[in-house]
């Protein structure tokens, strides 16, 4: 113990000073923080009058929890959201079970079928489910919807764009490069503004697209362009001999890409793909700027409620914690994959 401390904390005068400074910082910051968040905090109650401890008022989170998760979705219908997520998890289970064959097809089937199930559950209007317009969707549910749609749509869009960018046909290549660089060069906000105020002007008279749908299109194309660059890295890493060998076997372009190149290319860039997912998940918060109430948006709205004024620290800390858990677990997963794949390739 003492030897470890000497080696790692007090190896030189400078290091000792740094250690002491860091300890001082921790001493100044940690006790008040723990007092505020745990010891003096109030956990039980209904209204702000129950917050008497002088610390954090977690009652606020508790009282508004349902709204933070479901937005303005009617309380009696919330089971539908839960049901859709249960269906999703049940349908995804085969992907993670060992021994299930043809996982690729299960995945493709899931991507093609589940959106209809989800829309049926969320929007209603079928099977005597009451209709609920997208304006009522919100909270963590909306965040997960935007992230989920963005993630699933960006992958095929990104793969197609990356293939186009690597294509030998100059016109296709130019179109893809222009598309990718255009989306990557502008901030997501301008894309969302475009989806919100400019896209309706481009539609034929009488045709309207739901605001949420427009935002989803914007987010998907934006994420697709970033995905394309990640996938391109993978395509470039596949040895040319693989393609030549497949050509020598007489395979056509699409057969070569689907059976030979993409399986290798995507495996190499899985960590990069997960990183795009993490970035996309964080970027979903931007939809609040065009007036959708995602998880952050609904918390921000709740903070302006006169009954709960002055609890912004609690609200934002809670939001940060939730976002952090999602993003941190995703980036850990990506780091683990990176180690595993890196180890496998070196052999």
């Amino acid at each position, binding site marked *: 113990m003492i030897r470890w401390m000497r080696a790692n904390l007090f190896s030189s005068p400078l290091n000792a000073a740094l250690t002491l400074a860091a300890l001082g910082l921790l001493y100044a910051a940690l006790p008040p923080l723990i007092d505020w968040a745990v010891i003096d905090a109030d956990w039980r109650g209904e209204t702000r009058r129950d917050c008497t401890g002088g610390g954090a008022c977690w009652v606020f989170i508790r009282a508004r929890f349902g709204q933070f998760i479901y937005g303005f979705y009617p309380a009696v219908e919330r089971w539908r959201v839960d049901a859709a997520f249960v269906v999703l998890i049940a349908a995804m289970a085969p992907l993670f079970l060992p021994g299930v064959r043809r996982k690729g097809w299960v995945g493709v089937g899931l991507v093609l079928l589940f959106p209809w199930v989800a829309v049926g559950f969320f929007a209603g209007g079928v099977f005597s489910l009451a209709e609920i317009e997208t304006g009522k969707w919100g909270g963590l549910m909306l965040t997960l919807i935007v992230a989920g749609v963005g993630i699933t749509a960006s992958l095929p869009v990104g793969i197609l764009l990356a293939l186009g960018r690597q294509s030998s046909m100059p016109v296709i290549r130019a179109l893809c490069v222009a598309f990718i660089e255009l989306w990557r*060069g502008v901030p997501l906000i301008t894309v969302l503004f475009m989806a919100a105020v400019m896209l309706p002007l481009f539609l034929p008279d009488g045709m309207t697209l739901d605001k949420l749908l427009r935002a989803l299109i914007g987010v998907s194309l934006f994420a697709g362009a970033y995905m394309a660059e990640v996938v391109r890295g993978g395509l470039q890493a596949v040895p040319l001999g693989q393609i030549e060998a497949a050509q020598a076997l007489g395979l056509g372009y699409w057969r070569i890409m689907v059976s030979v190149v993409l399986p290798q290319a995507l495996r190499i860039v899985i960590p990069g793909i997960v990183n795009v997912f993490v970035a996309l998940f964080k970027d979903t918060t931007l939809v609040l700027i065009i007036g959708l109430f995602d998880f952050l948006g609904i918390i921000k709205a709740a903070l302006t409620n006169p009954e709960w004024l002055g609890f912004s620290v609690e609200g934002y800390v809670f939001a940060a914690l939730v976002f952090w858990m999602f993003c941190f677990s995703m980036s850990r997963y990506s780091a683990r994959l990176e180690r595993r794949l890196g180890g496998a390739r070196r052999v």
Partner: protein
Amino acid sequence: MPQVWYDRRYRAVLWQILAVAGAVLLSWFLLGNLFDNLARRGIASGFGFLDSTAGFGITMSLIPYSEASSYGRAFMVGLLNTLLVSALGILCATVLGFGIGIARLSGNWLVARLATIYIETLRNIPLLLQIFFWYFAALNALPSPRRSYEFAGGVFLNVRGLYVPAPALESGLGWLVAGALAGLVAAIFYLRSAKGRLAGGAAIFIGVTGLVALAGGFSLSWEFPALRGFNFRGGGVLIPELVALLLALSLYTAAFIAEVVRAGIEAVPHGQIEAAASLGLSRRRILRDIVIPQAMRVIIPPLTNQYLNLTKNSSLAAAIAYPDLISVFAGTVLNQTGQAVEVIAITMAVYLFISLVIALLMNLYNRRVMGKGSA
């Protein structure tokens, strides 16, 4: 099927013709809709609106601006504010990011752990949330002007913003500019010579600038902020929106820059350091002459990328009404004129231009660095 169909070259030509035709048809369809819709809703088109009077105020502007100014002027104000917050953010994030990146590799266990915690916390929380936290939670808790926190050198912090002393020009601005130009030329000449070092170049630049400016009679006085009535007067003020945005952008981007720096330093093979140590070089010289030059080659491209991200992320200013390009131009101007297409197109073009310029500079730099002494 005719024989031609099976010829790869003809098929390629056919596909490309189809792609172009598809793109043309799609844009024709969309533009047709657009003109129909614009005509139906009576929205003017064209860029003439840039000359008409804006009629709204902007809380912060680097160039003279009033409600009587034109929309084009408002655009310039927004653009300059975007560039200002980006430049300041890049500066702070770089300093902080290099510090934290080096701290993460420190032999001191506690310091390395703290740096890791900082990085993993900050980069996994959405930037917009961090901006809200600083603006609505942290800065709102600051005291009123009468009870401001006072820092050394006449700097005051309160709920209305950060008040700093501002330089007030007395005379000789032209000499300062001339001095800076002369300094730049001298520094470039020095840097291009074989012995050129960045620190020496900076010293030459500052020295020449100062000498020329002082010789020409350049003088400057500092104007300090002072409490008058309910608020501070004089000096410069960073409005709370700017402070919050700057804090969030720098702290967030610093976490990413720290990772870039760490990866760059770790990319230098350990044998290089051992070889330098066995030559008897001091730790300082190993760092300065062996590690940093090689690490920088790895660091610069992703670092530029982070700068670009920061510039694009500064557009989140719109969420807290810092008057940047998005909030002034794609927000207020768009709402007043209704000319969504022109406004969004200009806004996107500006960001695209910045991105392309930075990408171009990066490619040039990359070519230079890769060409010099790479194996």
